[in-house]
């Protein structure tokens, strides 16, 4: 082991990536300028479902318009899990035969700039014979529903079932509550939309793709398969990426089309998604319906959950994973942190005439958390008990860990009840109860809500093969290179897009190498220079990439030690490393001197030691079932019952993500995740008309919360290190986004618990809240005694 040098692990080091952005000198895809660049605008379907009968190119611009016919040579990628039961329709870059959602690309128009490309797009005429649109994912399964794909027996990509324990025993349970809950569709909304610039480099004989992506290496694989090119002839470069959140981690038709067109034209082509395209046709997220019955005994012990989970997956499966992961994660996370042993959940991953569903921060879990945490509160209300008491009674304790849930997850380390108690204390639970008794002078009603989440991260081969994933992101890689002056460049396969990897990975390297982070550069985002890696998603980077950096650095250290000892005329076990030097009892030699020897003065090397200080290694945790960060969110809201406006008065998180490499970055991820979770809970939604027209297509209709809508979150940390990762880290990028819908819905329901309000659908817009309160009030007025129970 290397001695700790200056405590880089756990330091709130300020970020290396800030400087360029603060000067406006970041380099995003749209900032790239290549000679001869042309812009692309897409012609898109304005019909949700129909037969595409003709696409007419304007005569004077036929060579600048590309349709399905022109890209017929592009291979269709098989997407979704490698499961026989999973059906998937072909998703070519341009619709052919049928259009299946509003916004589906039909043709691409190339011109000198975007405005001219849009002019051209207006002149392409598209003929579509409309078919009935499939809009509701539950109705979609009716026998007489219109079918998206001929030959499918129904509209489900896959129907599956999760059973555990003895669900039949639940029929006799004294408390059985049925609820139907709904989380509506939204977009992922990175502030930078998607974007791609592609050109064929004649000198290198390779296709160069600049792409705003979370995973350049995996995307190269997809491009290669689709375009029929060997991978060595494709270079994918991800420059600065302005947010992703899951939305930039799938092979999308527009990007495939641009890459394909670039192979056929003698100039670079660019497509920069605009916001309307983003809202209509980028990765959509979240849309779940839960039809569940929860069973409990009269003491409040939760027994089991039965029912159906519907995921509205949109029209196609996105490569690689498809939408089933969303569904299975939702189902498997339904028991939450509770000792719920009986489970019988039928899942339906349903094709509808909407843009394809993809991953978004939290994948599946915000819905599952919303469902279980709402149900727990409903059980409490039914029993006339405090929701926090029902949680205390049922929550897995630290003594029970590791704990295998009924959903098949293995909770590893932590103290879940402690997080609950911390949140209860920090939110001032009893003070809120007291305040509720006196009422608010302004007529608003106060509520407090609690929600627990857990976040699987660092899951490797065991988990991904269980999911039948066609890409198994079970490791990460790092190439560490010490240059002749002793400074270090590390190439990694993950993709920083706000997470601060240039800083946190440098801290890990600094820790292992005994070197100042200023002497270390982290590089990523170029398949030509970085070793293969899977990219940044699923809260995996700090565990996997951090582990790989640590491992490669240790290998470098061994060699530094060997060479340093030789230069000091000592034995390797008699030297130690400190502040960029190798020290023996009598002297020391700097990394610079060692690196110079290794690189340009090999006559100084010991016999049998190869030149160069360069190592590539990979890393996977010793147990690849994953490590779980977790925490409790607590919120206090004030609700105006007539208008339905909700103000968040206080928001607390008590969390534990194991060892923190950089607490500043951890807090930033939590606060940012919660802002997105609040968006899901209260603001963001893409509704659809009966004809399948998306009704929120600009930021005038799609509400992204701003600074006035998001409170500063009070964050309390505990630290139970993971047992199977380097330093005991756990991933934590998504947790913030998981619990807010549940916590806020519970808080709003709590405000009106005396009248038994039903809060069962997100986002909780003013209209939904007001309608729910009004419905409860009138039911309460009609049957006061029953509704009060």
């Amino acid at each position, binding site marked *: 082991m290397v001695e700790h040098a200056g405590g880089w692990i756990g330091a709130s080091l*300020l*970020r290396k*990536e*800030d*400087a*360029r*952005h*603060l*000067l*406006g*000198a*970041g*380099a*995003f895809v*749209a*900032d790239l*300028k290549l000679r001869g660049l042309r812009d692309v605008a897409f012609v898109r379907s304005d019909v949700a479902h129909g037969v595409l009968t003709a696409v007419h190119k304007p005569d004077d611009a036929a060579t600048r318009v590309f349709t399905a016919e022109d890209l017929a040579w592009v291979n269709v990628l098989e997407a979704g899990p490698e499961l026989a039961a999973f059906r998937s329709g072909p998703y070519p870059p341009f619709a052919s035969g049928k259009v299946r959602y509003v916004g589906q690309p039909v043709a691409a128009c190339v011109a000198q*700039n975007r*405005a001219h490309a849009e002019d051209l797009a207006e002149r392409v005429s598209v003929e579509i014979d409309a078919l009935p649109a499939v809009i509701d994912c539950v109705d979609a399964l009716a026998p007489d529903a219109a079918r998206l794909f001929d030959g499918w027996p129904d509209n489900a990509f896959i129907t599956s079932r999760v059973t555990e324990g003895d669900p039949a025993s639940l029929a006799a349970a004294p408390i059985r509550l049925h609820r139907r809950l709904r989380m509506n569709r939204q977009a992922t*909304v*990175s*502030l*930078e*939309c998607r974007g791609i610039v592609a050109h064929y480099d004649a000198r290198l004989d390779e296709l160069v793709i600049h792409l705003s992506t979370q995973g350049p290496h995996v995307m190269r694989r997809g491009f290669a398969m689709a375009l029929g090119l060997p991978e060595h002839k494709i270079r994918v470069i991800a420059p*600065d*990426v*302005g*947010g992703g*959140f899951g939305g930039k981690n799938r092979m999308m038709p527009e990007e495939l089309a641009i890459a394909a067109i670039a192979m056929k034209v003698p100039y670079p082509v660019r497509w*920069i998604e*605009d*916001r309307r395209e983003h809202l209509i046709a980028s990765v959509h997220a979240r849309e779940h319906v839960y039809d569940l019955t929860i069973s409990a005994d009269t003491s409040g012990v939760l027994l089991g959950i039965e029912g159906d989970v519907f995921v509205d997956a949109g029209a196609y499966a996105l490569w690689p994973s498809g939408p089933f992961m969303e569904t299975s994660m939702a189902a498997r996370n339904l028991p939450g942190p509770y000792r719920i042993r009986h489970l019988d959940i039928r899942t339906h991953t349903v094709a509808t005439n909407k843009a394809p569903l993809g991953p978004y921060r939290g994948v599946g879990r915000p819905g599952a958390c919303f469902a279980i945490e709402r149900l727990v509160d409903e059980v409490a209300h039914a029993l006339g008990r405090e929701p926090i008491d029902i949680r205390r009674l049922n929550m897995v304790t630290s003594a029970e860990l590791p704990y295998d849930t009924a959903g098949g997850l293995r909770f590893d380390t932590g103290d879940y009840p402690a997080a609950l108690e911390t949140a209860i204390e920090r939110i001032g639970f009893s003070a809120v109860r007291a305040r509720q008794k006196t009422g608010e002078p302004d007529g608003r009603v106060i509520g407090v809500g609690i929600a627990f989440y857990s976040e699987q991260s660092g899951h490797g081969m065991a988990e991904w093969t269980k999911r039948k994933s066609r890409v198994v992101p079970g490791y990460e890689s790092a190439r560490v290179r010490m240059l002749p002056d002793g400074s270090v460049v590390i190439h990694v396969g993950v993709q920083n*897009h*706000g*997470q*601060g990897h240039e800083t946190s990975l440098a801290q890990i390297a600094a820790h292992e190498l005994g070197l100042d982070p200023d002497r270390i550069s982290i590089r990523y985002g170029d398949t030509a220079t970085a070793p293969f890696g899977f990219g940044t998603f699923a809260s995996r980077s700090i565990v996997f990439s951090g582990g790989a950096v640590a491992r490669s650095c240790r290998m470098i250290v061994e060699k530094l030690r060997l060479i340093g000892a030789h230069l000091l005329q000592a034995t390797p076990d008699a030297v130690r490393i400190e502040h960029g030097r190798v020290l023996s009892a009598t002297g020391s030699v700097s990394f610079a001197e060692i690196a110079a020897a290794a690189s340009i003065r090999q006559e100084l090397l010991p016999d049998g030691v190869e030149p160069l200080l360069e190592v590539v290694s990979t890393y996977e945790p010793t147990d690849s079932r994953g490590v779980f960060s977790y925490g409790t969110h607590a919120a206090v809201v004030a609700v105006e019952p007539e208008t339905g406006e909700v103000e968040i008065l206080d928001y607390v998180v008590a969390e534990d993500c194991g060892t923190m490499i950089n607490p*500043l*970055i951890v*807090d*930033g991820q939590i*606060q*940012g*995740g*919660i*802002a*997105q979770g609040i968006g899901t809970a209260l603001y963001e939604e893409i509704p659809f008309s009966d004809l399948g027209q998306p009704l929120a297509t*600009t*930021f*005038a209709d799609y509400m*992204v919360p*701003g*600074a*006035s809508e*998001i409170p*500063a*979150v009070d964050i309390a940390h505990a630290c139970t290190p993971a047992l199977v990762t380097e330093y005991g880290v756990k991933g934590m990028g998504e947790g*913030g986004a998981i619990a807010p819908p549940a916590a806020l819905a519970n808080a709003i329901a709590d405000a009106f618990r005396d009248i038994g309000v039903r809060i069962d659908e997100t986002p909780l817009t003013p209209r939904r809240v007001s309608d729910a309160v009004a419905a409860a009030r009138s039911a309460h007025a009609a049957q006061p005694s029953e509704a009060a129970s």
Partner: protein
Amino acid sequence: MRTITLSVNGEDLTVTVEPRESLADVLRERLDLTGTHLGCEHGVCGACTIEVDGKATRACLILAVMAEGRRITTIEGLRDDPVAAVLRRHFHEQHALQCGFCTPGMLIMARDLLNRSTPSSEKDVREGLAGQMCRCTGYAGIVRAVLAAADETTSTRSPTP
């Protein structure tokens, strides 16, 4: 097409544009000033915010031809601005950025806020920045940074006329 002269960051630049081109597009595509970002092109997100005649303005909602004869300042023109410098330091220290896409517009608006008033409360800052979307940070670091910068610059700033 029409040839116009724009005063950008103190420099007169002559450029040929179509009347329909937004100032944002001309700055980015024709003048290579890519620090002005586009996040919506319809005025809501604030990523494109610049200054025109000293007033914070959506660069996506002003035509380049409208800006002829006006003083344009972009993030690139604020390298040596003292208020921007203080804001930058506090943004860095308070972790007020993650992906950095909102940052140029956020800094311009924050600077405008400080130049017009002294926001003393969190609420003032939040309202002042309500038109600047950030999808990554959840705003807490930004608000802290602007308040800290307001504190620091109160003594040096000239009061609004």
